[in-house]
């Protein structure tokens, strides 16, 4: 069966279709969780919570072809909330960051992404990690495509500024 057909059934409340959808996108969702939360344990927990939230809200999905992005956005929101919570709990100064701490070559870009606002992080993640179309993001966010583009532009600019400042500081 076509993915879109399964998605339609899931939206109508078909449990089996919902399960199929979750299995179809579990790798994407898990990796998204891992990118933010960085431990297997927390990412698995995120899978459970996101399944829970998605099951409750699946009927609100308007466009079945955007199912994957809809799920990824729930995951990102959950992860960002978790990071904010743990930040409060530990009251540490470190910003949430996307990425993998062992690899130093990617530290910079990870830090840069982490320096962005929650909504900018989400935008960057969807556009560059999930290859989500601008049109789709615009419809899901209920904003014009032009606004998505300018926000994306602004986010990239922030990344560049962060990286060049960081670069300058390293050269001193």
């Amino acid at each position, binding site marked *: 069966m076509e993915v879109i057909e399964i998605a339609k059934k899931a939206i*109508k*409340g078909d*449990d089996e279709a*919902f*399960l199929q959808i*979750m*299995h179809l996108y*579990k*790798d994407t969702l*898990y*990796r998204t969780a*891992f*990118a933010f939360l960085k431990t*297997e344990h927390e990412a*698995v*927990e995120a*899978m*459970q*919570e*996101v*399944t*829970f939230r*998605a*099951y*409750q*809200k699946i*009927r*609100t999905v308007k466009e079945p072809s955007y199912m994957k992005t809809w799920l990824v956005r729930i995951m990102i929101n959950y992860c960002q909330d978790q990071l904010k919570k743990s930040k409060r709990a530990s009251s540490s100064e470190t910003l949430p960051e*996307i*990425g*993998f701490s062992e*690899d130093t070559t*990617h530290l*910079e*870009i*990870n830090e840069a992404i982490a320096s962005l606002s929650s909504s900018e992080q989400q935008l*960057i993640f969807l556009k*560059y*990690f999930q290859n989500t179309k601008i049109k789709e993001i615009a419809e899901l966010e209920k904003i014009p495509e032009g606004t998505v583009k300018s926000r994306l532009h602004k986010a*990239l*600019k922030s*990344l*560049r500024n962060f*990286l060049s400042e960081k670069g300058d500081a390293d050269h001193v």
Partner: protein
Amino acid sequence: MYEKEEEMLDTTKKKLEQVVVPEELVKNAIQHGILKAKAKKRKRKKTLWAFSVAAILILTFVTSIRVSPAFASAISTIPGMDRFVHLIQFDKGIEAIVENDYYEPIGKSQVKNDITFTVDGIIIDETGAEIFYTLETPYPLKNLDYQEIKLFNNGQELKASSSYNLPDLEQGNSNEDEFSLVFVDSEQFTSNDFEVQFEVEQNNKITTFNVPFTLKNEIKSGKIYTLNETVEMDGQQIEIKEIKVYPLRVALTLEFDEQNEMKILQFEDMRIEDENGEVWSSIQNGITGFGENQNKETTYFLQSNYFKEPKELYLKFDKVQALPKEESYLLVDFAKKEILEQPSQRKVEVLNVGSNTIKLKYRPIREDHMYSLFSQGENAKGEVVDIPRQSNGGNNDEQYAEITLDAKDIINPVRIDFIAYPNYLKGSVSIQIK
């Protein structure tokens, strides 16, 4: 313009794609997420017991419902009915009702305080009513809470236990749903004039709707089979007294012999079969029967075969839950957080006792079913202790239940009778009704 940044992002993306996904853990997490969501959905179902019924004990839940495509398409031909397809607990009785045009469209509304309440249609017989309604507001429904639902006949309230789903808090300005009423006594209606009274609360303000209507359909009365026949199962005597067949349900009245050693709890597969072996099984969701705590006379509801005219009818059951009478309960001291007495079968394990809670674990009793293990407690003074919350969850291997008792009524020790327990009588019963 931002080639360098985009390139860095792309590298990060490729790294992310190499992250190994722990298949089993993720699968389990998805499974648990779904179970959790389902458990929550169930909890939102509210049942209001009519006071005059002394401890109505039988309430089970089904976790999955399948609608046959043929029936779904049949129902879509009835004006307005298609909107309700997703919420009816379909059984063969309801299918027959719809096929025989016993569902009556009403379509009457009342607008009050900007809220529109519409009675879309009704199925009614002497045992109860299924009322299909729509509630619409200019703002999200999450501000609303349901209060009381009453049905009047000729100005007289029909005493009933009602159950309904609470409106979805997450979304929308309208809610289409169904009220299920089960009348405490088989009602003899005095006219065709009815009125639905429904109260909602919003910011401490109560809005009461009254929607009167006159039924055009004749209300079908029950077909009664009097039996008074005693059967024996595993040494226990059960008298089958009477079977009444109504459009919405079959009501079967049994009486358990006082000399029985076992307390009979649930009939898992009670059913009626006709001469061709076609089965009408017991009602599987919501109120499934009325009975008293003393375990004497009890009424069970089965799916209805009202619109069929079978030549022969048989009542059958094999899986009957039961416990020895003297150990069919938990005796709990909540102050010491201790279980003083419990069934020696130990098929339900008590994990933890809190100041007014008990956590239990057991093997799933029946596929696709959730049984409430208890209905209410009794304190040291012999007064009722309510159990306002019971939650269930788990997977195919184990089930967990947590019950919360009304703390203000606890006087230790508290006795809590089981109404379901995975211990069975041996043997099987089949008797001819017709």
